[in-house]
């Protein structure tokens, strides 16, 4: 196990380094960050001076060396656009992102698992159709549409919760519900199909025949065996939320997460900020996927790495 973890740690470092290098190279293929920084009316002299000042006139290898040396020390430099150290800018927004993404995934899981199981227990019943319909609407709905609808129904018409902002649980409700819709739909669908698959396998029939109660059969065998795709998908959804797929919900609810920051960093080609963001996201991805793989082992002890 510890050998596996050590190996995994090595590969994880490779992932983080790989992402950073890729981001560095790719952004240098793109347009000119200095242009995005200056107002449209800036003069050529000002533009050249800014390029020089920010070190964009150095050869790419020099720039890369400078970046690598600093990055190893945990210093990604100052955001070009916000004039502040890049990593703290990302880190100070992480709690809001974790709170929102975590709450959404919990809402999604708490609702999706029972919904999926109920649907799977009585396939093709009315209940199943209603559950599936809800799930599919959830996953095909545009998040800005759902978010704005909730805003106009709750705070504007009923005076409940807030349209936007951050601070109390009442601020969290609407963005978390909006963000939960898609994972809810997706997870409940995979729960339904996985449990259905397991229920149809003979061993569950065999277990039933041995006199176990239906519930015990279900929980003991089917769900456990169905867990791998469920865990995989849930982990993937969580990763995506933490990696910045919250951006639309952040914009709609004025939520101070990392998603908007990352999109701005990309659009302005704010390399230091982008690097800091990608570094943090890569760490999150690596940790979540490690946890998922360990969970696989716990769910199915035969799995060896």
């Amino acid at each position: 196990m510890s050998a596996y973890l050590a190996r995994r740690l090595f590969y994880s470092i490779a992932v983080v380094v790989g992402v950073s290098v890729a981001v560095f190279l790719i952004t240098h293929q793109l347009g000119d960050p200095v242009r995005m920084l200056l107002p449209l009316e800036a003069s050529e002299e000002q533009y050249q001076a800014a390029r020089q000042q920010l070190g964009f006139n150095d050869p790419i290898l020099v720039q890369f060396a400078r970046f690598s040396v600093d990055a190893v020390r945990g210093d990604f430099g100052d955001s070009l656009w916000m004039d502040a150290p890049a990593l703290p800018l990302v880190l100070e927004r992480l709690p809001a992102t974790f709170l929102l993404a975590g709450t959404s995934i919990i809402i999604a899981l708490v609702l999706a698992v029972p919904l999926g199981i109920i649907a799977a227990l009585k396939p093709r019943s009315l209940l199943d159709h209603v559950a599936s319909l809800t799930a599919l609407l959830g996953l095909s709905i545009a998040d800005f549409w759902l978010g704005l609808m909730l805003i106009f129904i709750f705070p504007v018409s009923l005076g409940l919760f807030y349209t936007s902002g951050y601070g109390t649980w009442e601020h969290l409700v609407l963005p978390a519900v909006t963000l939960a819709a898609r994972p809810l739909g997706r997870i409940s669908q995979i729960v339904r199909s996985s449990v259905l698959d397991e229920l149809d396998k003979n061993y569950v029939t065999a277990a039933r025949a041995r006199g176990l109660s239906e519930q015990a059969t279900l929980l003991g065998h089917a769900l456990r065996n169905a867990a791998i795709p469920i865990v995989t998908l849930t982990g993937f959804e969580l990763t995506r939320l933490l990696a910045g797929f919250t951006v639309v919900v952040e914009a709609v609810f004025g939520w101070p997460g990392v998603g908007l920051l990352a999109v701005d960093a990309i659009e302005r080609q704010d390399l230091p900020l982008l690097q800091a963001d990608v570094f943090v996201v890569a760490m999150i991805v690596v940790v979540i996927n490690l946890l998922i793989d360990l969970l696989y082992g716990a769910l199915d002890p035969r799995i060896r790495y």
Partner: protein
Amino acid sequence: MEESLAPSVIIEPHTVDTSEAVTELRHPFLRSLKELALDLLHDWVAMIGLIGLVVLLVMAVTAPHISPYDPAKQSLRDRFVPPSWMEGGSPEHFLGTDSLGRDLFSRLIFGARVSLTIGFITLAVTATFGTFIGVISGYYGGTLDEILMRWVDIQTAFPGLLVAITIIAMIGPSVENLILVLAINGWLIFARIARGMTLSLREQVFVRAARVAGCRDRRIIIVHILPNLISPLLTISVMELARFILAEAALSYLGLGIQPPDSSWGLILAQGRDYLVNAWWVVTFPGVVIAMTVLFINMVAGWLRSVSDPHQRFKLRNS
């Protein structure tokens, strides 16, 4: 622990005759067409889904003939005409008009072409590639698994928007390039799901037995692993289709996809975003057709799932 799991290792799930765990199984998709059609007749849900899909596809293909207006024809004096059944609506515009006075119904008919093309092609590419990588990774394990999955990690962590901007900057915006960009980010979940399940499947008795019996890897994967992946992958496919159709909008809106005067369901939706307050129909109807497409696909997928699984199929036929 081992005790409670014991039943699950006894029988191969997809072997019809359970006494011959290692015998070759005729692939479910190779059954006669007649039987499939019979299944379909028994399954009204799938029928509705299939009919719905066919209608959408016919609509997309025959768009220039059935569309009441030129979808790009603007009329600034007729902005935001409500749907015909609403107050202020006009019988000339069944679903109303958008912010530039274009007929929403005609735009949705034409938008189907772009959205369905992009959705289905991207899905085909990502599902195939992702499943391939996932199965290889999970089946062979070890260093190969480690490398492939860390590649997936790198891509997961890498901002998709940055990939899109870079690629489109190099090769220009077009439908083909849009599919490429969506596919680059879309195969990861297929790989992770396929790999996770393969990890578990390859340790099952029937796979081990097949290996001991001298079956080649390719055969084991095709005959014993893939059939067990069909159901979850179909489920994922349905949801990814919805995601691709919506993601196309985000990219096209930024100028990374299709160009005016062409449009798609997602783009109509995105362009209506600012007008949800005063013209709900512009945002809502494209959302409804996207949801309906997903619904139809899911209905058909449910049937595909059941015909790929002999037990479910048996129950259905006799219910």
